């Protein structure tokens, strides 16, 4: 990016400046959120609607407006279509082509990263709410001595141990020491990753029980699904390939080799169906985004339809 724009958000390498910026940003963020609570109740929803609209408009325009390279191509293009686009939008394309922006940027692009970072900062404040929710639920469970209170105690124990191990390996007197790294390694690779892998491995067993129920021949659709799944699975394993290995590898007849049938099912009917679904999903997402952008979706959330 050649044009840096607003230098306030540029990266600072000096530690003291970094700490000052973090503290300042936290203070500003806290003041901003505290300030929002003073907004009159009646003004809150219009405020949200306006901010949503402006933010949506910015990101939409950033995507829809052409980048510098496109502007250059249209200005240089010789065919009739380019001439028409040039005549209609030359007022925008010429200054863009002559700017010092990167080839894939338009006038709005330089601020995208900064706005995305600002959103991440706002979202960061809600992490504390998530943590509070966990502490509240598990703390209450221990204080009330509920049936599974020891699981809640384990949550606090695990939380404290992981935080301590992480902190020790990167800060304080044990920073960089082999022992502190080993504790962190035990907590993450030895425990967390192993537990993750154990949960993931459950899927193998669940797939069998789910497949057993689904692949029973109850209807024409279930039969087609079972036959297709059987052919695809056979085409992926050596025994399936061996079963039809006597069929020549060339010529029309080669289409009947199991690995080719499997490949055809995956890349033709399956891909076509998935693309069809994806088209529908994309249009659905666009309509939903439009309703949220224009605050037309309110009926489903916070108040009756306007």
């Amino acid at each position, binding site marked *: 990016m050649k044009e840096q724009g607003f230098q306030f958000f540029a990266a600072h390498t000096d530690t003291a400046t970094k700490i000052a910026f973090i503290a300042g940003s936290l203070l500003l963020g806290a003041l901003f959120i505290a300030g929002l609570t003073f907004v009159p109740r009646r003004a809150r929803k219009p405020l949200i609607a306006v901010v949503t609209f402006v933010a949506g408009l910015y990101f939409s325009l950033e995507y829809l407006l052409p980048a510098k390279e496109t502007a250059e191509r249209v200005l240089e293009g010789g065919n009739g279509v380019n001439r028409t686009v040039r005549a209609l939008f030359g007022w925008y394309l010429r200054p863009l082509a002559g700017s010092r922006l990167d080839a894939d940027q338009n006038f709005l692009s330089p601020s995208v990263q900064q706005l995305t970072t600002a959103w991440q900062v706002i979202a960061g404040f809600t992490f504390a709410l998530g943590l509070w*929710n966990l502490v509240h639920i598990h703390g209450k469970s221990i204080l009330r001595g509920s049936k599974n209170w020891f699981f809640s105690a384990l949550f606090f124990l695990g939380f404290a141990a992981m935080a301590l191990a992480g902190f020790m390996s990167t800060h304080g007197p044990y920073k960089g020491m082999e022992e502190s790294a080993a504790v962190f390694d035990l907590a993450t690779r030895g425990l967390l990753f192993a537990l993750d892998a154990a949960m993931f491995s459950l899927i193998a067993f669940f797939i069998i029980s789910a497949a057993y129920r689904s692949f029973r021949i109850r209807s024409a659709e279930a039969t087609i699904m079972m036959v297709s799944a059987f052919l695809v699975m056979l085409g992926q394993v050596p025994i399936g390939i061996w079963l039809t290995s006597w069929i020549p590898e060339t010529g029309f007849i080669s289409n009947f080799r199991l690995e080719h049938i499997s490949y055809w099912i995956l890349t033709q009917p399956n891909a076509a169906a998935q693309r069809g679904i994806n*088209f529908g999903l994309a*249009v659905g997402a666009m*309509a939903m985004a439009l309703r949220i952008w224009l605050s*037309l979706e309110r009926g489903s959330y916070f108040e009756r339809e306007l």
Partner: protein
Amino acid sequence: MNHASFPVVVIEAILISLILYKIFSARRGKDLFIRRIPGLSAIDEAVGRATELGRPIFFSPGLGGLDIVSLQALSILSHIVKLAAQFRTRVVVALADAVLMTVAQEVAREAYAREGTPELYEPDDIRFLSDQQFAYASASIGLMSREKAASCMYFGHFFAESLILAETGHHIGAIQVAGTPDTTQLPFFIAACDYTIIGDEFYAGSAYLSREPTLLGSLVGQDYSKLVLLSLILLGVLGVTLAPWWEPGLAVLKWFTIGKAE
């Protein structure tokens, strides 16, 4: 950075105009029809079953953050909570995103209040579990089993944990309804759940359940938009096929590539 090409801008303008036109004509009172979607009709059945058994409903919006998919999931949650509030049935929501948790709490609070039962809102039922995939899956199945959920609903972004959740739901005997835009997870939900909402039916959820004119209009607009896209695909196929022999076929292809490198 990605930017739209000229044809994309034109197509998007047409689709947006169509959707907005249908929304505003629906708001003016035009009667619109939508076909029956069994998966969405099953939500009422699932709430009814939980009420009969006196057990809670489990709802998961998946692993997604605050995006369009999760907002649609929360819109469906809003309907479920309203329905459950009428019968004083609990809804337990398991979340993997702290931002989404705050929105979900607000949605649930509003839904209970709208049904005239604000006292039923229990903040602890809208739980943030973990933002780690399998920690979330593990905590969710624990919650489903301990609470003996009578109905389990999965609407949102799901990954490998989809089958873990849905199979656990099946093992505890819950009636299950799922909907996700993640096509890779659809087979798992189809195999393990009683009803699965496929493709854009997911986005039809709020319109189908609430019958609000804005949402119904938007849904009809989506259908018209799909017709436009289908016509463009056919036009492109014809253009590619006929281009070698027919001049206008080549013009169609050129239109699609305005602004692209030649």
